[in-house]
């Protein structure tokens, strides 16, 4: 292999550092294995690897991989050996690197540290090293200890799934980048270790380049002073440049001019301090499009610690970065949505419960202003004065009310037209440039002192009946502050606010109507009391002279009987009769008056049987005289003033006694429950009522007989009707002349 192609010769000479030392001291965790399946003899190990696995180099070199790292016998689910073996077999078969998913692979603790196994997680990559002859000569096993990460991950159960996935992907990708970026160095070290001959070195150099050309990263090597002397093929393919263009510091031509300064600063700083360089920046591709790369540059030192080479990789992270940006945007949106949702959650109950219109409107304005991030917000009623100009501001948020005095927002300007006419939403990134703005005579341009509004959003608030109640207006001094999302939020709020305002307005109307009704009721009640009092006074004043007429007439009859002849005595008798009848009329008229009027406040539960008993007691004398029998079934309690039920029974039973046949009166009172009322019946065995008069008898002063035949005022049944109707009941009679009569009336249950 010494006589390789002259191309190798033409390349720059490679300084041959002590690769074994280099390899063993690299910061990564590396094992070099022989492809002697199934033993996989360990032929090299980095210090870091030995430390991480708690092994010693001299103890494991020459040992089989799985002898050194068996499965944890205490873990029945251990799959480490199986998975690793499978990966190594894939490498052998496919002759290509094989990255394994994160593995649980517990490691044996030395006896000096108590023995047993320690739980570990690894991210391994196995890569073949293919020799000149085309055989796999070694397998580089590179791992990263991700135990901490996995533990962390396990602890963060609640963590957003998206975050996890992205993190793992990023982690894997980075692990991949690191590994591949270092493979070159590894390869070189291995080669150097195998043979120190320059030919072999050149051969390995070629091998290295082949390898470097075969990986997806752009890679390059630079002198300690930063002069890049070699790029892999991918670099030239991606950038579409030639080695001549790239020589030395020619790489600057594919950088984004805006980023270049920072790149140079940081790269020079690394060169000066000899520390690794890491940065993300875009590189221009052959077709002129910039793609983002993660660039890592590692310094390599010889055994004496001298920096001998910079090794750089550029990994295409354009998609990763885009995913990251998308995720950040997503997170931001989600956060906004969450805070919006919080505000809306506050708004929800408010809209449902707030029936005070002023407070409701203010709250809606405040919340919507907060949600849109507006500097000022206002709700304005859809009211136009006689001049057709002003919409009075109803509530403002974010600015004192006075600030709106010179503010044209509530004016009936062309720009507000669409909102107040319910035509829709107006959203403008810069309202001052809107053609509708400033068309409001006499202010053809912006008046002085106004709030500086640039971004503008207006949404009509409509009622259920599509009536425009007003508008929500939002302003911000910076342009383009309101997005489609804000528009959607405010539209949602406006829809709900419209309903809530409807409710509040209805509630206010109902309250007003209730107040009016209450006032009217109170007035009516007072009027009724006045009227009743008046009726008493009037009846008293009417009755006094009548009583005098009656009493004086009687006294004349008694005291002066000697001076009167029979005819005079009879006339005096008629006079007394008339006066008494008039007295009865006045009494009954008073009762009739009292039977009317509004019902309601005086409704109480009255025992019908008690009332009937007291009425029977009142009439006991007459009942005894007539040998009448009055019986009754079980009677209910009813909602009626006691005096009214008394009058009902008194009149009906008096009538039954009065209009008796030649039989002793038999009267029966009963009650049956109906749908929503009690049906009372008073049945007698009296003279009965011809059907043609059965309605007329309930009219006032309607009588079927002369006072001589049956004394009475003709008011009794009218009083009954009035009382029953006062309680929304009905009264009627069923009768056949000569067969008695049954009076029915209904009362509420």
């Amino acid at each position, binding site marked *: 292999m010494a006589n390789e192609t002259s191309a190798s010769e033409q390349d720059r000479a490679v300084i041959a550092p002590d690769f074994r030392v280099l390899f063993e001291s690299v910061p990564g965790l590396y094992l070099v294995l022989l492809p002697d399946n199934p033993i996989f003899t360990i032929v090299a190990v980095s210090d870091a690897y030995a430390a991480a696995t708690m092994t010693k180099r001299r103890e494991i070199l020459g040992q089989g991989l799985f002898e050194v790292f068996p499965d944890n016998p205490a873990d029945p689910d251990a799959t480490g050996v199986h998975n690793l073996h499978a990966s190594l077999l894939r490498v052998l078969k496919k002759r290509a690197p094989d990255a394994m998913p994160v593995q649980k692979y517990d490691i044996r603790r030395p006896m000096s540290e108590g023995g047993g196994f320690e739980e570990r997680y690894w991210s391994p990559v196995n890569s073949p090293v293919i020799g000149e002859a085309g055989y796999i000569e070694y397998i580089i096993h590179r791992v990263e200890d991700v135990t901490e990460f996995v533990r962390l991950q396990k602890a963060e159960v609640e963590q957003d799934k998206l975050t996890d996935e992205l993190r793992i992907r990023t982690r894997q990708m980075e692990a991949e980048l690191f590994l591949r970026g270092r493979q070159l160095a590894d390869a070189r070290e291995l080669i150097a270790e195998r043979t120190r001959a320059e030919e072999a070195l050149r051969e390995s150099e070629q091998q290295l380049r082949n390898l470097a050309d075969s990986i997806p990263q752009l890679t390059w090597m630079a002198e300690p002073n930063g002069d890049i002397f070699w790029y892999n093929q991918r670099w030239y393919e991606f950038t579409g440049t030639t080695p001549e263009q790239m020589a030395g510091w020619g790489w600057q031509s594919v950088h984004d001019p805006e980023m270049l300064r920072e790149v140079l600063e940081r790269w020079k700083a690394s060169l000066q301090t000899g520390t690794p360089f890491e940065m993300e920046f875009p590189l221009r591709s052959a077709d002129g499009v910039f793609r983002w790369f993660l660039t890592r540059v590692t310094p390599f030192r010889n055994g004496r610690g001298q920096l001998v080479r910079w090794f750089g990789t550029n990994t295409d992270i354009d998609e990763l970065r885009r995913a990251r940006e998308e995720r950040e945007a997503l997170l931001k949106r989600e956060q906004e949505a969450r805070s919006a949702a919080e505000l809306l959650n506050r708004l929800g109950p408010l809209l449902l419960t707030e029936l005070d219109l002023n407070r409701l409107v203010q709250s809606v304005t405040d919340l919507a202003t907060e949600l849109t991030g507006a500097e000022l917000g206002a709700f304005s009623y859809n009211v136009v004065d006689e001049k057709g100009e002003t919409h009075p501001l109803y509530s403002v948020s974010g600015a004192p009310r006075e600030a709106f005095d010179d503010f044209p927002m509530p004016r009936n300007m062309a720009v507000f037209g669409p909102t107040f006419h319910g035509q829709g939403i107006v959203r403008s990134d810069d309202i001052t440039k809107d053609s509708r703005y400033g068309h409001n005579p006499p202010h053809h341009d912006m008046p002085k002192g106004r709030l500086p509004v640039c971004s503008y959003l207006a949404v009509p608030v409509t009622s259920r009946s599509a009536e425009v109640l007003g508008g929500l207006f939002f302003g911000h001094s910076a342009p383009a502050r309101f997005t489609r999302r804000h528009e959607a939020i405010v539209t949602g709020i406006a829809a709900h606010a419209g309903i809530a305002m409807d409710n509040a307005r209805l509630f206010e109307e109902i309250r007003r109507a209730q107040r009016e009704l209450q006032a009217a009721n109170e007035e009516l009640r007072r009027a009724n009391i006045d009227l009743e009092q008046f009726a008493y006074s009037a009846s*008293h004043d009417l009755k006094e002279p009548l009583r005098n007429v*009656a009493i004086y007439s009687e*006294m004349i009859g008694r005291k002066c009987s000697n001076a009167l002849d029979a005819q005079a005595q009879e006339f005096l008798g008629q006079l007394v009769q008339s*006066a*008494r009848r008039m007295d009865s009329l006045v009494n009954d008229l008073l009762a009739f008056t009292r039977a009317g009027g509004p019902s309601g406040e005086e409704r109480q539960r009255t025992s019908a049987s008690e009332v009937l008993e007291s009425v029977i007691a009142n009439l006991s004398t007459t009942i005894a005289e007539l040998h009448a029998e009055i019986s009754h079934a079980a009677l209910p309690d009813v909602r009626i003033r006691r005096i009214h039920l008394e009058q009902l029974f008194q009149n009906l039973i008096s009538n039954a006694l009065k209009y008796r046949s030649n039989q002793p009166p038999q009267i029966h009172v009963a009650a049956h429950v109906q749908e929503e009322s009690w049906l009372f019946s008073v049945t007698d065995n009296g003279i009965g009522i011809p059907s043609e008069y059965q309605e007329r008898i309930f009219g006032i002063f309607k009588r079927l007989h002369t006072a001589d035949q049956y004394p009475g005022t003709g008011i009794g049944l009218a009083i009954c009707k009035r009382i029953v109707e006062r309680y929304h009941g009905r009264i009627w009679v069923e009768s056949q002349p000569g067969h008695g009569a049954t009076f029915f009336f209904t009362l509420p249950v």
Partner: protein
Amino acid sequence: MEPHSSSHSRSEVSGQPGQLHVLLVEDNKADIFVVQEAFTNYEIPAVLHVVEDGEAAMRFIDDADQDEDAPCPILVLLDLNLPKRSGTEVLAYLRRSKKCARAKVLVVTSSNSPTDRAATQQLGANGYFLKPPSYDEFLKIGEIVLNTLNDMSGNG
């Protein structure tokens, strides 16, 4: 028809120890006549004093309070519709009297208003007699007065 003159009645009876006094406050001549008839018919053992308006009734009470010898009624028959001061005012005045506050009061009226009934009951009226439109019926007030006086002497 002079016997209802209050001054006359008082002079006749003043100074007689153990004598019972009834005061009728009434402006209706016919009603005064009937009550006097009732006192005679039922042989009521008390002197009937009559005043015809509310103010006179209050003066009667004042006299009783201030004058040792002036009669103090144990029963007042009180009409409500009176000239000058109403029956309810007289009733309230009576209940504040030093000497006559414990007198029984029978309201005698043609008003059947529940308001009047309630108001007088509230002020401590002991009975309510609704004037009937009949001489004979009205005379029965004598029975009520007699029963009341008997009850009072019976109770000591």
